[in-house]
């Protein structure tokens, strides 16, 4: 027993010696330490990719109020006369424009938050490039240009909706500093955007089909154009748009419908798009927007006002009393873009007839639950032959299209007071509406005050549901006229079941809006005001 005793003691003592220390230095096993990250110049590309991705999510039915996430972008049309949020009058978008916008509006808060998240990534990236980057200079310049472009666009959006916002251009030294930032004036923000975009125009490569996913010179110029248009600096706007046109890399695609889907997303018309890749980095657009009979949630409900803005094929404006109007075939005799953009009652979608009339027994009956609230759904952006996972669709969503460049160029020339010639019209608006798949009669109006409404309507129709409508209404300062009064949906003149408001044309009543002058400027989120008195 004594022997055993000693053996055990010896064993215990040995064990002691072996295990008296353990590894107290632990580091993450699948993440880069900040201190070593820049040791490899190639890592810069990883960080740049992170700037593009920012808050976006893939393969998820979640919503992200990122200006470029497909839903953050196109759902902005809910806050316009183009579309209605199926989720009703209390939708954060609808409340932006129905006279009940408040500082606790969750969507307003999210756009703010997501903008600064993207800005933060760009600031960290640009700071890292400046102090630590040791790689190929040419590559470095391009990468810096891309991040600079992304950051500038975020400030562009902030300046357009919030106007005065904090201007943050460097990473915060201390977390708490973020609580002490002050507002910069809209003019300061605009100056910053213009300066930065000009720099990035110098730094960025021109558009190419292969490189289309990355920020490019044309995209930077187009945002510069947007900034100038908003600032009513029309001559400068016309100049930058002309630059894009003269570069000749982009063109109007003959097939309107296809450029919004994964089939033809690489069209040169799409200067810069938000990128999705089926299954790997998919979008849930089919989930959100498709009809109930296809398993969709019908969230995007285009409005009658948009439906009525499409001309008849002969180039005349829509009129319920026109003989060309057929209430049983709503796309008959209409600008073909109507059919490319909207799913209308009794039209075919994915090989099935879509029936939403109020008397129908279908799962898509208007206002039957999670179904259209207006009688319309969105066809644009959908590849009808797609049969994969509805939350993993791969279609890109264009941020800047060449069509916008042409229409904006014309608008800049017009507003700058330049003479409007038929050549100019043919090179711009008529090129857009004359493309093979649309083939609408050319515009010949050269009187600028008569041309203005035509151009604005053309812009609305061409760019419908692409998320730019509210911005247009803001900069034209026409929201107060356009976004007041009743909101109507699809005409169902023959339906037995009626909405609760009478309409001469049998239109389905949706809601009403009272846009206020103060709604041109979004309030700084209440939660931000709570934390930082400088923002009150």
């Amino acid at each position, binding site marked *: 027993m004594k022997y*055993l005793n000693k053996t055990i003691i010896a064993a215990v003592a040995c064990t002691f010696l072996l295990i008296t220390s353990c590894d107290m230095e*632990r*580091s993450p096993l699948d993440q880069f330490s900040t201190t070593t990250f820049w040791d490899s110049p190639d890592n810069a590309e990883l*960080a*740049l990719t*992170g700037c593009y991705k920012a808050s976006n999510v893939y393969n998820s039915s979640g919503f992200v109020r990122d200006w470029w996430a497909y839903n953050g972008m196109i759902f902005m049309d809910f806050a316009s006369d183009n579309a209605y949020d199926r989720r009703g009058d209390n939708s954060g978008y609808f409340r932006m424009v129905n006279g009940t916008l408040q500082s606790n509006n969750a969507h307003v808060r999210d756009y703010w938050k997501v903008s600064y998240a993207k800005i933060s990534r760009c600031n960290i990236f640009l700071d890292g490039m400046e102090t630590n980057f040791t790689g190929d200079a040419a590559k470095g310049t391009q990468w810096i240009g891309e991040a600079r472009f992304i950051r500038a666009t975020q400030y562009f959006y902030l300046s357009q909706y919030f106007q005065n916002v904090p201007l943050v251009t460097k990473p915060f030294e201390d*977390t708490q500093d973020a609580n002490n930032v002050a507002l910069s004036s809209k003019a300061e923000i605009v100056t910053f955007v213009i300066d930065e975009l000009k720099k990035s125009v110098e730094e960025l490569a021109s558009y190419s089909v292969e490189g289309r996913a990355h920020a490019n010179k044309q995209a930077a110029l187009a945002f510069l154009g947007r900034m100038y248009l908003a600032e009513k600096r029309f001559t400068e706007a016309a100049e930058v748009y002309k630059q894009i046109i003269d570069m000749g890399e982009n063109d109007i695609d003959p097939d309107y419908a296809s450029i919004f889907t994964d089939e033809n997303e690489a069209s040169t018309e799409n200067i810069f798009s938000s990128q999705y890749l089926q299954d790997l980095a998919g979008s849930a657009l089919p989930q959100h927007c498709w009809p109930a009979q296809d398993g969709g949630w019908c969230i995007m409900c285009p409005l009658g006002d948009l439906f009525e803005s499409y001309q008849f094929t002969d180039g005349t404006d829509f009129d319920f009393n026109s003989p060309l109007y057929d209430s049983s075939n709503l796309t008959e005799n209409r600008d073909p873009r109507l059919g490319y953009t909207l799913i209308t009652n009794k039209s075919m979608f994915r090989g099935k007839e879509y029936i939403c009339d109020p008397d129908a027994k279908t799962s898509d009956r208007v206002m039957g639950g999670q179904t259209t609230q207006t009688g319309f759904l969105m066809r644009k952006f959908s590849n009808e032959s797609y049969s*994969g996972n509805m939350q993993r669709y791969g279609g890109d969503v264009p941020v800047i299209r060449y069509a916008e460049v042409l229409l904006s160029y014309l608008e800049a020339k017009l507003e700058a007071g330049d003479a409007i010639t038929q050549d100019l019209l043919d090179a711009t608006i008529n090129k857009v509406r004359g493309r093979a798949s649309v083939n609408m009669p050319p515009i010949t109006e050269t009187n600028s005050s008569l041309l203005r409404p035509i151009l604005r309507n053309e812009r609305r129709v061409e760019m419908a549901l692409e998320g730019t409508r509210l911005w247009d209404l803001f900069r034209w300062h026409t929201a107060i006229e356009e976004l007041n009064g009743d909101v109507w949906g699809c005409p169902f003149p023959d339906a037995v079941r009626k909405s609760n408001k009478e309409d001469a044309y049998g239109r389905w009543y949706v809601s009403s809006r009272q846009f206020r002058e103060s709604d041109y400027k979004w309030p700084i989120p*209440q939660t931000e005001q709570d934390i930082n008195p400088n923002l009150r």
Partner: protein
Amino acid sequence: MHLYLNMKNKMKLSVLFLMLTMFCASASVKSYSQVTEISIHLENTTVKKALDEIKSESQFSFWFRNGEVNLSKTVTVNMDHQNIRKVLDAVLAGQDLAYSIDEKHIVIYKNQESSAQINSIQQEKAIRGTVVDDQGIPIIGANVVIKGTTNGSITDLDGNFILQANKGDLLTVSYIGYNSQEIRIKDQTAINIILKEDSQALDEVVVVGYGVQKKANVIGSIAQIGAEKLENRSTPKLSNALTGQMSGVTVIQRSGQPGVDGGEVRIRGVGSFGATPSALVLIDGIPGDMNDVNSDDVETVSVLKDASTAAIYGARAANGVILITTKNGTEGKVKVSYNGYVGFNKATELPQFVDTWRYAELVNEVRQSEVYTAEDIQKYKDGSDPEHYGNFNYLEDVLSRNGFQTGHDISINGGDKKNKYMLSFGYLDQEGLVEKNDYKRYNARINLVNQLASNLTLTSRMSGMYSMRNEPNVPGGDDANGLLGIIQKAVRYPGLTPSILSDGTYTTGREHHGTAPAWVDSDSFLQNPNYTISANLKLDYEPIKDLKLSAIGAYENTSIENKNYKSTITLEDGTIPGPSSLTEETNRTIYKTFQATANYSRTFGVHNIDVLAGYSWEQEDYHNLIGSRDNFPGNDLPYIDAGAPDNQTSEGTAWGWAIQSYFGRVKYNYAERYLFESTFRYDGSSRFPDDNKYGFFPSLAAGWRVSEESFMKDNEDLSWISGLKFKVSWGRLGNQNVPNNYYPYQSVYALGENYAFGDSYSSGAAINVATDPTLKWEETETYDIGMESVLFNGKLTFNASYFHRNTYDILYKPTSSVSTVLGQSTSQMNMGEMNNSGWEFELGHQNKVGEVSYNVNANLTLISNEVATLGVGNVTQLNGMVGNGSSLFIGYPMQMYYGYQTDGVFLNDGEVAEWADQTAVNPSSQAGDFRYKDISGPDGVPDGEVDPNYDRTFLGSRIPKYTFGLNLGAEYKGFDFSALFQGVADVKGYMNYFAGFALANQGNIQEWQGNCFDPENPVRNPEYPRIQDLGNSTPPNYQTSDFWVLNASYVRLKNLQLGYTLPKHITSSIGIENLRFYLQGENLFCINSYREGWDPEINGTGSYYPILATYTFGVNLKF
């Protein structure tokens, strides 16, 4: 006094004599001693050897007092097939001894002992008395001495004694295992004395960090419950068995979901708004999940509440330490015990919904349009077309069954002096309320104690656990997740159609994905197996007397898997939402530890010292792997390989942490009267940067046992005070509990920030999280002052303590206190400070009246919780409150609600103009909308405008201010009854969206919501305001306000039990030591004013699992 052989429980001796008498009365049954024959052949051997031989030959055991039997006497015995009496007569021949035999127990005692006393000459005054225990059973051999003299006596077989005493003498009655008692002789000539077992009062031993301690000498605040309270409580999860049992320990059960229905245990309130305020749970010294432990294996659960007791666990002890000790084998013959129960459960409450026709009418009103025609509504009403116009309750369809529940535990226990063992096996099968939902758990354990040498003991504990949770799942294509997702959607959607049509197809449901009851029926499933094995070896070595060296090594391997299959389903119109998908996940955690301690404990006269020094390290490594595929061919092959290869994904990660610690403790007491204790721990954690890796956590405590002072002991008027102790302690503790963040100070470029450039998916990285490179522990300083008392010989106990916990350097993610302009989320930072202070009271009473013995135990805890500073985010709001404007304010409790006060609703649109201008909150107020109160304004007085900056205020907190429990127990002739009431008060709850709001995102309407504001018949305070279509947003009426913040106080009959123990004379005849049957009800009723149909412990949005009421029938069997 020392007893030989298997004398663990002193009770036995008396029980045995009681039974002996019974046997004399009923001799018709032939006893073991009568039928057993013994053969024994021993030459010149000792009496001891002879008795040992008899013991090994038979099942007899011997009981006698040391010294009375001459064990070394030499005897010779040669017998074949003889009765035990014959054998014993031979063995004990020549000694003046008698014996009595009860079944297998033989008591040997000095002949004539009792009669000698009875016949002793009576001088002075003869005092006769009886000493019994609290069960009324005579205590044999108790010492009865007149204090200060050698004049004494010993009780006889019936517990009787007689001795001579003078009036005024102090009689001391003592017996090992029982509390001594002193009685002053007055005029009485007969005294009946009840001795209390020490386990119920003063001499109880409690488990403390790295050891045990006599309860009387404990200075800190420790609550402990023992096996007897746990064995009888047929609760699947140990945490829930603790509810209401101990003061300062709050258990909140938020879910009844089988397998994940463990309660949330909080000790002395919620200690932090940063790091998780959960207690450190140690199972036999090793951190673990208490809910994986088989309750029947547990010997004690000891909760270290204050700093002086917990500080020895340093950096993880700030929120208390729960020490769970499993049973060890005991010396003696094999004992088998079986505890089993069967029962069923049902939801305590379920929300009721309006009928579908009422739903349709309300929707029409809200939409102001004919969403449902009169014809539709008629069909809903008359049920003429049930396939299309139904009136279903999806929630009841989903929660359709009374879940069957059963548990069986067997343990085998025994050993000899050197080797002891405890083996146990436990089985639990708990069905849920939802079909296909069950939880099965198998526990096995072996605890061995081997004395390798006289000064070397090895304790081995090995346990294994396998559990499996099965649940139905959501089919492919729907955004809901798992069982809670199914329940949430059942809460959400109105039952307008059946779920399954007569032809077997599923109806489309609102989202064209089918309905929740159909999903339960589908092929979708979730499987969640958990395998845990752990081994824990402890070596105790005593190189010299009083010094004990111990080394503990433990290893635990936990594997948790998840298999999540979402099937395809075919809807009535032929569509198949989907695709089907399968995700399989494996998580493996390996935990290792080594601990060494040296403990020196010695008494020098009246000085008792105990010194402990120790070292430990622990490390844990985790690894996971997730793979998925979709588009399975049919639903019969839910295995990864069967899925389509083109959309497969894989993910995986790993992490690890380590802690290294040095600790020590010094205990000193003077005559067990003045008590001092000090501990320290020096803890290092891998989670903190080099400069801040180590933290020092000291504690000090002092106690005074007033009752040990002679001025109390000798004071006859104070003899009703059996024990009185005052104590005070201080200590500093740490908390490093930052879940899922093992490198909280390290700034990293996290990968996974990928973006699709054209046709390629490129890797990306970003610094998503702002970190603090100088991070350190969160610290808590605790002061504790308390008193403990035992009165009237243990009939009454009363304890009270006051504590103050100051937590600072809170490890807090200041997400809602940092501007989003930062653009990153924040990791834990050391910021903020808060205080918890409160009182704990425990009152116990036990007594016996006639044949009824009863006990009442009550505990009450008052806690006030207050934020002292936020660190970042201390912003003065316009209303003067200082905080982040949403969730934390200085001077207010955490987990608070901040919002408006309401004063009913507007009766008509005209009233809006008469009320304060509330356009800043509700831009278009109308009849049926809340009238928000104008509380303040820029000048500190109501300004005629209701505004978020001035008119929001504190509306209450989710942390209960009062927590209480009341245990009632009674026994009468084998019947036992116990009831446990438990509750909380001054606490708020909040339910929103699908659980609280009508028509939330196409949602349903609950019955109480249906009594909404009616413009035709307006009332000021309707049950629900103007009903609105909510979409996915919260319009002005749904801002946080006192209407939505609910009083969540409750009193619950947590447990009710009625048991019957069969009389021993019946059970022992069939070889059973103890047999008890019981009926038990858990969560039987609850008094509260929460929302109709919702349990007050439920918060949230309707993604929940109801709390269950459980009815069981059980058996406790020992033989």
